[in-house]
């Protein structure tokens, strides 16, 4: 399993508690559209991801992240 695959798996795991609609999660899944998350859910989820990987995702970065795939890329580049 590649590094990125591992990150992807952990992100999927982190999403599940917030996946109220129980939809299938892929690289293209959008947080606002597919998962229907409001801004408060996003905040809690981002905090969980930051703690899981011991990184910081600034609000500016969050604004650029719309899909699961983009989040995985961001986390991968931040974890160093």
């Amino acid at each position, binding site marked *: 399993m590649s590094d990125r695959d591992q990150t992807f798996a952990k992100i999927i795991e982190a999403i599940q508690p917030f996946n109220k609609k129980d939809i299938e999660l892929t690289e293209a899944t959008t947080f606002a559209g597919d998962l229907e998350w*409001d*801004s*408060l859910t996003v*905040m*809690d989820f981002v*905090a969980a991801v*930051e*703690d899981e990987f*011991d*990184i*910081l995702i*600034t*609000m*500016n970065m969050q604004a650029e992240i719309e899909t699961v795939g983009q989040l995985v890329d961001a986390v991968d580049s931040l974890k160093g």
Partner: protein
Amino acid sequence: MTDLFSKFDPLIAEREALLASGVRDPFAIVMDEVRSPTLAVIKGKETILLGTYNYMGMTFDPDVIAAGKKALDEFGSGTTGSRVLNGTYQGHKACEDALKEFYGTKSAMVFSTGYQANLGMMSTIAGKGEYIILDADSHASIYDGCALGNAEIVRFRHNSIEDLDKRLGRLPAEAGKLVVLEGVYSMVGDIAPLKEMVAVARKHEAMVLVDEAHGMGFFGKNGRGVFEEAGVEADVDFVVGTFSKSVGTVGGFCVSNHPKFEVLRLVCRPYVFTASLPPSVVATAAASIRKLMHAGDKRAHLWKNSKRLHAGLREMGFTLGTETAQSAIIAVMLPDMETTVRMWQALIELGLYVNMARPPATPAGTYLLRCSLCAEHSDEQVEQILGMFRAAGQAVGCIG
């Protein structure tokens, strides 16, 4: 052609559905008469006001009114200019002097609104490559100021000293950092553990800004705010505040002892590119600020009111936002939108005005009725208020 307003359709539909059910629009209340800081006439009915930020009841103080009238006569209705051009009158300087005395600082800068004060400070002090670290429950003016600027924005869990420490620890050591805290958080009325948080900020070599909008006048020996009460004045670099609460008018300010503070007057866009406050406003503000320096009795009565309301509501069975009365804001937590609207409606019909708050203005899915006390609420009025809450609560079915 795309109607730019289509994006608002869901909100319009939601509001229309709500109003079709026969309730009054909580966001469209009109005060036909305002008889005192605590009494107004709404739709012909005398109504007790429990949803203003007139904490110290200064809006009808005779000295404050007299100062305003005098300024109108002597300086006219407005400055018609920016502070950096023709819009600084002696009244603006006098107002800044009053603030310097109140806060014991070398500098004071008056903005046209508190919203603009935060817009200005957040967007200017921290720049590209620097970080602003703010509490997740920060006021919209703080968030908007962050969005206006170019700094990296990082949130920490509300009032969590540990989370603040953790996040600061993840930032590059050499980057400039500003930690933004509020003394009193305005939705639920809880105070911040400023002593510990400021210590953490200092440990990570961050500068500190505290917004004391809801604390000025009744916390700390000189009424400077929660930061004064917490004993951290020496470690706070900037204090932002407003004239629209305890001071009783409109306007905002930042006070500081930073030796280079005055340069902000030239680089802060929400200060430069806007008209300055009218002469009557800075005159009433200055008069009010000076009176607040000696308002011990009012302060004591405000706390008495807050504690009585909190205890009374809790005894009745309401769920409140804080365990004890931490400030002059008491939030009554309700389970959902429908109950909240029905309670709010029942109260206004009984003759009591409170603020209704819902997401996204409130933290995580909470619905609440926000009550804010005034030093001018009499003991009898507070008992009346409790009676109205009991009646409304029983009618709506949220208490026994």
